[in-house]
């Protein structure tokens, strides 16, 4: 990768995110044109008065509904993508994502229990968050008995995931009247996002992301394998544990506020690796930018295709992601090295 090409990829990623954000805040069910949207947003900057004559209802829709939703989509997309890329770096497998150690199943169980118990508001995300972390903690405990090989850990994650899914099915079976609400959550949605939804996951998002990004270079060194990495002065097992914990925290923060949104964590890092090479120093931050833009676009589609009804965003990412993924796989000779 030359420096010039490296810089171009960064510019492209930033431009993609900005374009997606612009698209996200201007497209939608209100009477505001792009120029008015721009004026209202600029007016929010301290010391700037560019508001002009804008209908207060439209203005409120933009600032209280659409803007937090777009930003939440960007946050969730960035988190899912960086968590996926982190997991792929740990397991040296491009088909792994942050749901692999049972966090999705755990979040699903948490949310289901909360919804069935009649919880509302922020109790559901909190329960989903706790469920995701509990599942991964269990997988780590089960998978690191004896020797810590990554395949043992993955198998433990699969086992924990199956167990939590079974538990969720059991809970759901006894509460069929909550079925629709639970499914709506499981399929993922950013509807009803407001500024609190954005603030709640932020601390976990920042800590988790920071931990993952801080290990970018060391994840690259792990490419030479366990023993050689150890001979170069690293603790591979410790690095893997920290990255898994950081990525899990970031992903759980995202899942808690958005439900289960698939494909972002696999497709986005994969596309980034195709453009920018495999070094985590580039892949991790670029995945955040591209993941944010991707999910903003997906959410824009989700709320406009069937307007005034909404598609679940998980359906949109899967519908966009699967063909994209197949295309990437078919155009990659090596099948995508990690």
């Amino acid at each position: 990768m030359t420096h010039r090409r490296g810089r171009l990829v960064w510019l492209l990623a930033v431009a993609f995110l900005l374009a997606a954000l612009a698209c996200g805040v201007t497209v939608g069910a209100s009477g505001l044109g792009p120029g008015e949207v721009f004026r209202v947003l600029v007016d929010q900057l301290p010391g700037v008065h560019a508001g002009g004559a804008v209908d207060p209802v439209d203005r409120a829709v933009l600032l209280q509904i659409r803007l937090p939703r777009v930003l939440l989509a960007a946050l969730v997309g960035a988190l899912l993508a960086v968590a996926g890329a982190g997991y792929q770096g740990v397991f040296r497998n491009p088909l792994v994502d942050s749901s692999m150690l049972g966090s999705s199943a755990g979040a699903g169980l948490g949310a289901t229990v909360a919804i069935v118990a009649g919880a509302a508001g922020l109790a559901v995300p909190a329960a989903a968050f706790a469920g995701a972390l509990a599942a991964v903690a269990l997988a780590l405990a089960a998978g690191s008995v004896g020797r810590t090989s990554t395949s043992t850990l993955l198998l433990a994650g699969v086992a924990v995931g199956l167990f939590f899914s079974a538990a969720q099915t059991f809970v759901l079976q006894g509460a069929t009247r909550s079925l629709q609400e639970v499914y709506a959550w499981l399929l993922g949605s950013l509807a009803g996002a407001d500024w609190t939804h954005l603030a709640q996951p932020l601390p976990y998002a920042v800590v988790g992301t920071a931990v993952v990004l801080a290990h970018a270079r060391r994840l690259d060194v792990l490419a030479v394998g366990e023993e050689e990495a150890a001979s170069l002065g690293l603790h591979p097992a410790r690095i893997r544990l920290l990255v898994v914990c950081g990525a899990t925290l970031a992903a759980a923060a995202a899942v808690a506020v958005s439900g289960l949104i698939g494909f972002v964590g696999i497709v986005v890092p994969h596309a980034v690796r195709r453009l920018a090479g495999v070094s985590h120093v580039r892949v991790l931050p670029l995945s955040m930018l591209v993941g944010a833009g991707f999910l903003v676009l997906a959410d824009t589609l989700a709320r406009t295709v069937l307007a005034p009804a909404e598609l679940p965003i998980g359906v949109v990412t899967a519908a966009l992601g699967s063909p994209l993924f197949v295309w990437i796989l078919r155009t990659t000779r090596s099948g995508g090295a990690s």
Partner: protein
Amino acid sequence: MTLRAEGVRAALDGTEVLHGVDCQVPDGGWLAVIGPNGAGKSTLLRALAGLLPLAAGRIALDGEDPARMRRRERARRLAYVPQAPVMPAELTVEEYVLLGRTPYLGPLAAPGASDRAAAGEAMERLRLTGLTRRRLTTLSGGERQRAALARALAQRPRLLLLDEPTSALDVGHQQQVLGLVDELRADGGPAVVSTLHDLTTAGQYADRLVLMAAGEVAAEGPAEKVLTEQLIHRVYGARVEVARDSTGRPVVIPVRAP
């Protein structure tokens, strides 16, 4: 830098493969570990590198046990090149050699000018200067081996542990690689411990040999003492004649049974 191992016992997957091995390397020395397949040569090397817990015995690198050193500190003092180093397909030679600077980089730091200089010097020493931007996958066997050595050298170690550095190479490239290692050592570079399966080569480059058999030391000393027909027959079950080359070093010639 001196390395001393005493009574080293170590197990792989619960089976003891080293049954009390003694060896030592003085500053600037080259010790070759020879012996039949399965004698425990690679295991000894990994134990010396601090990568294998010992069941008994002690290893001292300037008085310190490598297995108990902080890993970063250890990686600055000794470098280990396994028999088949992992060569990530996507890396260029320069990126790969820069991995050798890992023990000198802070958690968040990118390789800086001094790291690039160290990697550049290592590549120059190993005649890789024209290949720095080539992908590892495009290298020949000899070039790959030199790239692995350059990575080890970029660690600026005082001790170089090489597991079969020439096993995949033809005779010309064997001599090239071993000659480069010897050149480094002679220039005040690291002491060397290497396993070598070719007995004649071992005697030509190393200044001492350790002959291992079934996890124990069968003989230790200079080539003339270790490379004898009787010892080789006893340890390898091989029929050989030992001749002398023009410099007086032993040459081991396999002989077919009459």
